[in-house]
């Protein structure tokens, strides 16, 4: 990590954050800086320490060691000051579904001391921005998953925070809804200039971010723009199939100086410049080549390279399990 002086537009600065539970060290020394107005993504598998880190930055957890300043305020010394300046959208829903959308927003405006002269105006504006105006007077229990998420984002913005924290904002939503949420988040950033700090374990979503920190086992293993991270993989991923894969692999190594990864009849290689490599490959290879494909590396490739394993949905999080238990309990009561 570079040791530059925090720029004037740094809105989040963490240094050496550590969170230790009895035996587990969930966060093991995290440094990061987030600039004003950017969408900063925190990417990693479940249990990597994403939620713990975001909780420390939101003052919901105290770090065991290290410091963090959010909106210029120390998270340990003045948590209330931080909370007034940040918006939060939790991983788990936190709406009152008996109330209407507008009532949920009203509640928030009150507990965040939004001036009464501004309350209605801001609520109307956020409802419009999140395209919830027509459903504002319906009870939240009638909302779809995506609408609930949008309402939570609208709510998080009501007190005009400098930074909006989104913890897995699209968890459990279908791909189309996820895309809508992203469009809204992006619009929010553009129209309100708010900094977005989000966690996700969906690789494709991380592409929407300006910068990404890849976290694994409590540490940041890479940080950069999506393109910078992908460049770490080494250019392009070229895949060929051949009826004589052994001969092809040998030739590629000898003639082209690249060691392909072998998977049955498929050979996969990472090359700096795929567009120049493919014609050479076809020209110089004597072994038969049946198909050639080339693609840009994805963040999946990046994660694979950095950690040696693929990111995936591991077992359901503890909260999910709790929630499932709660709903079983409710079902029994009814």
């Amino acid at each position, binding site marked *: 990590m570079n*040791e*530059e*002086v*925090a720029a*004037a537009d*740094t809105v989040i*600065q963490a*240094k050496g954050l550590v969170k230790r539970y009895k035996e587990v060290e969930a966060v093991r020394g995290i440094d990061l800086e987030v600039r004003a107005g950017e969408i900063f993504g925190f990417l990693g598998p479940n249990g990597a320490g994403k939620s713990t880190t975001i909780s420390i930055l*939101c*003052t*919901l*957890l*105290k770090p065991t060691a290290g410091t963090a*300043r959010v*909106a*210029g*305020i120390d998270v340990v010394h003045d948590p*209330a*000051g931080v*909370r*007034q*300046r940040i918006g*939060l959208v*939790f991983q*788990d*829903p*936190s*709406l*009152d*579904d*008996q*109330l209407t959308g507008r*009532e949920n927003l*009203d*509640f*928030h405006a*009150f*507990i*965040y*001391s939004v*001036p009464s002269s501004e309350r209605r105006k801001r609520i109307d504006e956020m409802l419009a921005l999140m395209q919830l105006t027509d459903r504002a007077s319906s*009870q939240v229990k009638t909302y779809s998953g995506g609408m609930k998420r949008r309402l939570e984002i609208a*709510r998080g913005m009501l007190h005009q925070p*400098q930074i909006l924290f989104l913890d897995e904002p699209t968890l459990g939503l279908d791909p189309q809804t996820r895309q809508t949420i992203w469009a809204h988040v992006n619009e929010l950033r553009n129209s309100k200039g708010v900094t977005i700090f989000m966690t996700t374990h969906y690789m494709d979503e991380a592409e929407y971010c300006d910068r990404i920190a890849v976290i694994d086992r409590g540490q940041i293993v890479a940080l950069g723009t999506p393109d910078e991270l992908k460049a770490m993989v080494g250019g392009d991923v070229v895949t060929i199939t051949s009826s004589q894969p052994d001969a092809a692999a040998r030739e590629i190594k000898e003639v082209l100086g690249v060691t392909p990864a072998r998977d049955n009849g498929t050979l996969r290689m990472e090359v700096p410049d795929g567009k120049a490599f493919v014609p050479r490959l076809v020209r110089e290879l004597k072994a038969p080549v049946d198909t050639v494909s080339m693609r840009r590396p994805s963040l999946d490739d990046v994660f694979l390279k950095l950690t040696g394993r693929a990111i995936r949905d591991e077992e359901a999080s503890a909260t999910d399990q*709790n929630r499932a238990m*709660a709903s079983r*309990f409710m079902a029994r009561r009814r």
Partner: protein
Amino acid sequence: MSVNVATPAHAVALPLPADTRMATLRAIYIIWYRDILRFWRDRWRLVASLAQPLLFLIVFGSGLSSSLGGASTFGTKGGLSYIQFMYPGIIGMAILFTAIFGAMSIVWDREFGFLKEVLVAPIDRSAVAIGKALGSTTQAMIQGLILLVLAPLIGVTLTVPTVLAMIPLAAVLAFGLSAFGVALASTMKSMQGFQVVMNFLMMPMFFLSGALFPLNNLPGWMTVLTRLDPASYGIDPLRRVVLSASGLPGPVIDRLGLTINGSVLPIWLEAGIVLAFGVVMLGIAVVSFQRRD
């Protein structure tokens, strides 16, 4: 390493709640208001909730008064029926159950995530306990006082002064028990403990409160328990008011009322005891909420 990270100038100028006390009051108000809104939205529940007291009064009351017959303490003297005796107790029951259930909705809020929205807000946590206690108090008062519409059926004549006396007494009982419920809920992490509270606290509190039978001439152990039950001190004043409205002579009322070492407690003292209990419980709830990480 970074050299003295200065606080950006604009951060200082941002509007914070100018007056924390005002912010806390606003938060108490909106937490209370949310409870009332939900209560009002669920109006059918208000109607449905009349079923249980009615069942008690009609089935339990009629059944018991006919089997007790003229032999009962209240059978002949002053023309008081068991149902009339029980009626204020049933109002107390409605208040007891609504207050504690209402306050325990905090546990539901925790289970379904809404509590998080409140707990992360830049407000004093005491607002959560106070707002919730006041919300349950209001609901319990309404649930209890709505039973006054049954008075003509029971043969109790209500006058304006009687009703005006009932309101503050119902409020005090509702507050004491709501605060108790909030204190309980503040220590509970999940719905699991709910059944325990129901069976080991609410039901005993109800049975020992004097709602169903006079608290005099009981076995010693039971006398002690009934005097430890805060609900006893809330239900007795309600009964005194209702019975004196029914034209029952004072000495008879005293004989049916709550005594300590044989002496009758004045209504204001009883109400004071419940109020003090409520304040202590609320204090515990506030501390408990503030201590959560």
